[in-house]
């Protein structure tokens, strides 16, 4: 799956691409790289839906402060911008009611 994205990698990746899944769709991301950045470049722009109105959100600060990039990684809520890509990650959009800490 490759969606048009406004976020583009300057250089071709010189490290390994690994398979992960985002909301059940297969994605190839660069291993060891920042998960939020990799998802943005792969065309993902909805990381979580708010608890109050269900509106979509995407990374805002990229430095671990705003929590807008929350996703479930293998069932646990994580800040994507504070997480590195590993092979086989099961990533799911963070919404209230779909994970361990809902």
């Amino acid at each position: 799956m490759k969606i048009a994205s406004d976020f583009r990698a300057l250089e071709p990746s010189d490290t390994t691409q690994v398979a992960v899944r985002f909301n059940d769709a297969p994605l190839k991301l660069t291993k060891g790289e920042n998960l939020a950045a990799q998802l943005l470049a792969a065309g993902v722009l909805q990381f979580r839906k708010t608890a109050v109105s269900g509106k979509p959100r995407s990374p805002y600060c990229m430095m671990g402060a705003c929590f807008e990039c929350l996703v479930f990684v293998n069932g646990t809520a994580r800040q994507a911008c504070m997480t590195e890509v590993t092979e086989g990650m099961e990533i799911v959009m963070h919404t209230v009611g779909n994970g361990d800490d809902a």
Partner: protein
Amino acid sequence: MMRDFDLVVIGAGPAGISGAITAANEGLSVLLLDEQPRAGGQIYRNVERTNQSRSEILGSDYTKGLGLVQSLNRADIEHIHGANVWQIENQNTVYYSVNGTASVCRAKCILLATGAIERPMPVPGWTLPGVMTAGAAQILLKQSGIVCENAVIAGSGPLLYLVAAQMVRAGTPPLALLETQTKTDFLASMRYVTGALRGASYLVKGLSLLAEIRKARVPRYVGVTDIAIDGHDKVEGISFNDGRKKHTIPCGTALLHHGVVPNTQAARSVGVKHQWNDQQHCFVPEVDLWGHTASDGIYVAGDGAGIGGANVAALTGELAALDIARTLGALSESERDKKAAPITQKRNRELAARPFIDRAYPPYANALAPEDSTIICRCEEVTAGDIRQYAKLGCIGPNQTKAFGRSGMGPCQGRYCGLAVTEILAAENQISPDQTGYYRIRPPIKPVTLGELVGLELTEEKESAE
């Protein structure tokens, strides 16, 4: 196992690194905890792994951080990266988690070097996917070599020009630069120009960035008001008024920035008092010349103690470490003063341009007093109008707004609404920000799982059983 250190430093940006190195040079045992995978803070983020093309785009103010970061590679400083500090207790006990495992350590002194966050910029539509801070776009470039195409930059401050120039160098110039500072701001800043000339290198850099942006023919609008981001499920455009008429620019990304403010979360969680600073338009912790707070053994250095930039941060980290060494008996008072004198001098020179910059690039007025329908608390979706309504109902302080409507109670723990809530309440109630106060910050200051807590208890039990 509870480990003991003379000094635990929290944050591995310029202040934390310099503090750790200076303390280790005086023979103190140092633990440096940092939540990022590599040292450098946001300013020198990922500098150890950058490559030639990224370095050229980011410039020498970034790459010069490499030396500082590399100087950490020494046996007498323990640097734990990926460490989320979630609680500081009794002024000497630090709880943190690494990869889902919690640990605890004890320190004679703690140096908080938690840096700055970008001042929240609540404008209509700022919660739409595709809106991020200008700093976030820069982090994408530093961390991952990723650029934003199809972006408009809006706000004020030197970082705006730096990010725009870096985007130009990367071959993806912003579609436009919307600047909120006015001619009046510029004229008012002239009062401080003498000081600024003492810190002339900052001005020269600013002018050369502007020249790059002009050369790339990036459209610039100055004195912009009424910024609003349009779109349904994502950014589709940005509209604004340039004093003559309303404009709309279609875009996919909106990068907002109007200055940085101290990240006070850790300091507040241990009860450090904060004071409103009119010049910087934010709260800063109350510290002495060494960064020492009123709490024994707790120091704050770097932008977290008041915005001064990376060079000042490194110097204040050194000063704090020298006083910590004196407190712990590694230096006499006169030895400390002798070592500190040239550092203080340098710091003052670096700070000389600050009043000019602060006055020339004030925060965007419409984002300090947003219209009623604008969301203030992104997590709980509380609007400026909601906060004003709470004030009318008798709410005088930010902590009370939590009971009225949950503002500040979401996952970010008020980091991106706290200042706005204080300012809106202060304006409505016609009292000062100091009288209005700020959220009470309680641990855990970063999320910690039940599993991590349970794991920690087991370790302690095992220890006491031995």
